[in-house]
């Protein structure tokens, strides 16, 4: 009895409990990150292709993706049961599905053919097989599995520059022509609706539009030529079952022979893959290609939000803490602010849609963009409204953190400053606020963390599955905050749950999740580094 009493009084149990709680949290977080990391990073590794000959003499070729025990085969006699492996067989256009389960018991033979080629295509996913014929138009350039690689691979390398040119024309050149044409058209429309149009100006505007139309047609011709060049060379591919398919080389992105690659080559390709995902645009309903627009949209939205939320939050907190007469009202405001931080984000989304998008955006359209109505400019979801909605959602965090930062500034600093003839405002600007900077940055860190991961309100205020253009480009006014944008969080949801080919999209979900975590980490690290610098500068007052 006495021993037990002493044991409880000593607090040993409590130390174990608290330590255990911490260990549990770390384990959970660590496990989560490890899972995301392993699955996300594994996606980029060029895996070997295995060729299986089954008992019924049919052949299967593909990457091993997964293996599992077949639940039904576990009996008391065979406690281990039988297992099966999942192969990514690709060739979706040929087989219909690009994943297949094979029972281990059915496999008669396994080989790793050295010369098998993996093709990454712009459509239909990967193709695994061999090249048999290379075509130039309708003439055969080369035939046979061995020589074909050397003949056609240089063509593939050329297509990359062609694709870049096409992309440039489609997006930048034609985009610029379109926006100029739209402007001229709106100008004409505006003049017509005001009724102050003269025949001359109408004619000149029409002529303007026609000129641009001509320029547009010219670019289209250029594109046609480029596409012809892209499709000039074709290859006939054969898969493991002997089916043949003929493609233009322009329809392929890359080709590699995983089974004959050295580790060093694989590492190089791994890095390349990683880089491509970060910088490319998505293809195939987002399940392939890169996620650059989503990364860009996420980072930019968070930056716009920060630019809005910090001044607002800090000013509000300064008034609340420094100028407002402390009393019942300020206490109630503080409680309200704290509660606001706990309101579900979808509520903010609904508010953002109703207030920012329809009320504010609609009014802006009425006042400034009436010519383009009924097409909304700001009266629809967009970068600006999404950022403002998130700013509204995170402003309580900034207010609370700033207030705490202000309270932490020693009274002596204020009095010292006032004692030297500074007004309250001067003291605030020159001494108090700089000293409260670390607290303000803590608020920003929390706000950024919350905003980066938020999806629900964005779905109502401006996020889309595939944005036609980035919110920043080379066309005046360069920053298009009215545009819709892509977001990593929404990308995860979309790719993982809305895509037609879930199995093929799985790696993309992990990659996107990993990138999202990295983006949050990066944004936070920047803010934390900034805070550490500030702390060093403003901390350590002796006594």
């Amino acid at each position, binding site marked *: 009895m006495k021993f037990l009493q002493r044991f409880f009084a000593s607090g040993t149990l409590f130390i174990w409990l608290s330590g255990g709680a911490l260990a549990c949290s770390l384990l959970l977080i660590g496990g989560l990150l490890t899972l995301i990391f392993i699955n996300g990073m594994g996606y980029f590794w060029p895996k070997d292709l295995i060729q299986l000959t089954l008992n019924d003499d049919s052949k299967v070729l593909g990457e091993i993706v997964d293996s599992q025990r077949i639940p039904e085969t576990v009996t008391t006699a065979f406690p281990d049961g039988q297992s099966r492996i999942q192969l990514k067989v690709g060739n979706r256009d040929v087989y219909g599905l690009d994943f297949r389960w094979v029972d281990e018991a059915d496999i008669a033979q396994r080989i790793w053919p050295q010369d098998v080629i993996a093709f990454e295509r712009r459509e239909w996913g990967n193709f695994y097989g061999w090249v048999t014929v290379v075509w130039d138009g309708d003439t055969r350039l080369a035939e046979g599995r061995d020589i074909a690689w050397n003949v056609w691979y240089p063509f593939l390398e050329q297509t990359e520059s062609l694709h870049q040119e096409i992309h440039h024309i489609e997006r930048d050149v034609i985009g610029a022509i379109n926006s100029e044409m739209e402007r001229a058209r709106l100008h004409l429309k505006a003049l017509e609706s005001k009724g102050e149009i003269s025949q001359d100006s109408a004619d000149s505007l029409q002529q303007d539009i026609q000129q641009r139309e001509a320029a547009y047609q010219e670019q289209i011709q250029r594109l046609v030529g480029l596409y012809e060049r892209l499709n000039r060379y074709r290859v006939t591919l054969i898969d493991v079952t002997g089916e043949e398919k003929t493609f233009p080389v322009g329809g392929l992105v890359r080709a590699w022979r995983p089974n004959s690659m050295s580790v060093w080559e694989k590492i190089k390709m791994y890095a390349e893959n990683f880089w491509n995902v970060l910088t490319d645009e998505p293809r195939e309903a987002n399940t392939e290609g890169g996620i650059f627009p989503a990364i860009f949209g996420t980072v930019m939205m968070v930056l716009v939000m920060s630019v809005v939320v910090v001044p607002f939050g800090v000013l509000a907190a300064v008034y609340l803490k420094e100028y407002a*007469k*402390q009393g019942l009202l300020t206490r109630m405001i503080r409680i309200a602010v704290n509660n606001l931080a706990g309101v579900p984000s979808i509520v903010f989304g609904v508010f953002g849609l109703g207030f920012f998008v329809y009320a504010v955006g609609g009014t802006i359209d009425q006042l400034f963009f009436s010519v383009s109505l009924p097409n909304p400019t700001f009266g629809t979801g967009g970068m600006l409204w999404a950022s403002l909605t998130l700013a509204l959602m995170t402003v309580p965090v900034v207010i609370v953190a700033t207030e705490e930062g202000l309270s932490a500034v*020693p009274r*002596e*600093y204020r*009095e*010292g*400053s*006032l*004692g*030297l*003839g*500074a*007004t*309250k405002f*001067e003291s605030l600007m*020159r*001494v108090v606020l*700089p*000293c409260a900077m670390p607290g303000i940055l803590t608020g920003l860190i929390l706000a950024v963390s919350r905003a980066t991961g938020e999806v629900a309100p964005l779905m109502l205020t401006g996020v889309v599955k595939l944005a036609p253009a980035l919110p920043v480009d080379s066309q005046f006014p360069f920053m298009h905050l009215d545009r819709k944008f892509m977001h990593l969080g929404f990308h995860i949801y979309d790719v993982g749950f809305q895509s037609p080919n879930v199995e093929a999209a799985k790696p993309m979900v992990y990659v996107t999740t990993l990138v999202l975590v990295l983006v949050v980490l990066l944004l936070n690290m920047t803010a934390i580094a900034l805070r550490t610098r500030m702390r060093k*500068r*403003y*901390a*350590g*007052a*002796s*006594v």
Partner: protein
Amino acid sequence: MEIEQKILENSVSLVKTTPAKSLRLVVETRQTDPMKKIFLESETAQHPLTDAPAKIVIQDMNFYYGTVQALKCVNMTVPANKVTAFIGPSGCGKSTLLRCLNRLNDLVDGTRVEGTILLDDENIYRPEVDATDLRTRVGMVFQKINPFPKTVWQNVAYGPQLQKIRKRAILDDIVETSLQGAGLWEEVKDRLHASALGLSGGQQQRLCIARALAVNPEVLLMDEPCSALDPISTGRIEELLHTLKERLTVVIVTHNMQQAARVSDLTGFFLLGELIEFDGTKKIFTNPGDSRTEDYVTGRFG
């Protein structure tokens, strides 16, 4: 003689300008308040400072924190170019009085002031007096050493910069003279642009003095400036006071009786918000007029 005349003049002006209620207050306190005795005494008993002109005259000062009265009808005259010390046990109101002299208490919520404080014959509590201007005339050094988390140079140049002095050369000049005035120049001249928080405690406090001197005040208020310092640093600041009083008036609050005895020319003893005795330092410490003062300075209580 001069002090007496000033008091008379001021009370006349007070009578002229203040409404009836405070007039009655003044009259009442005149009749009942023992404070009056101090001035009467100093009139008769050869006050050691009659030759110094008055810098600050405090008249019938009452101060309230909410409903708590912290100062009770304080009357005193602080002479120019002397060191005046306030002593007394904790919570006796001496710091409060000090902070009234540059209206730093204005910023504390729920405080109330009655009475007048004349700085060079001008009531600093008149509404048209700008408190920030006043504070450039009446500088302050605090008990808690509070250099700003900036460089040494920025700390000293802070006050002048607030007065819109922008020229680098002038600021450099002010910084140098102020640091010299605080006896710190030799120690920090090579690290003017290093953080002030890297200095030792004593250096930091002298930096605070330099910072106060940089706005060229007429009065320097010191609120227990040495309470956090070791004896050597304390000694240097005390030395400094002797030179400082040639150019300005110093009012110092201290808990350290020896310090008061060493540095000050006049000493006021406060107890529970009242000024018990105000006289030449020598007299206070050797032959106090009040038994409570005697108890305190001899260490029998407080």
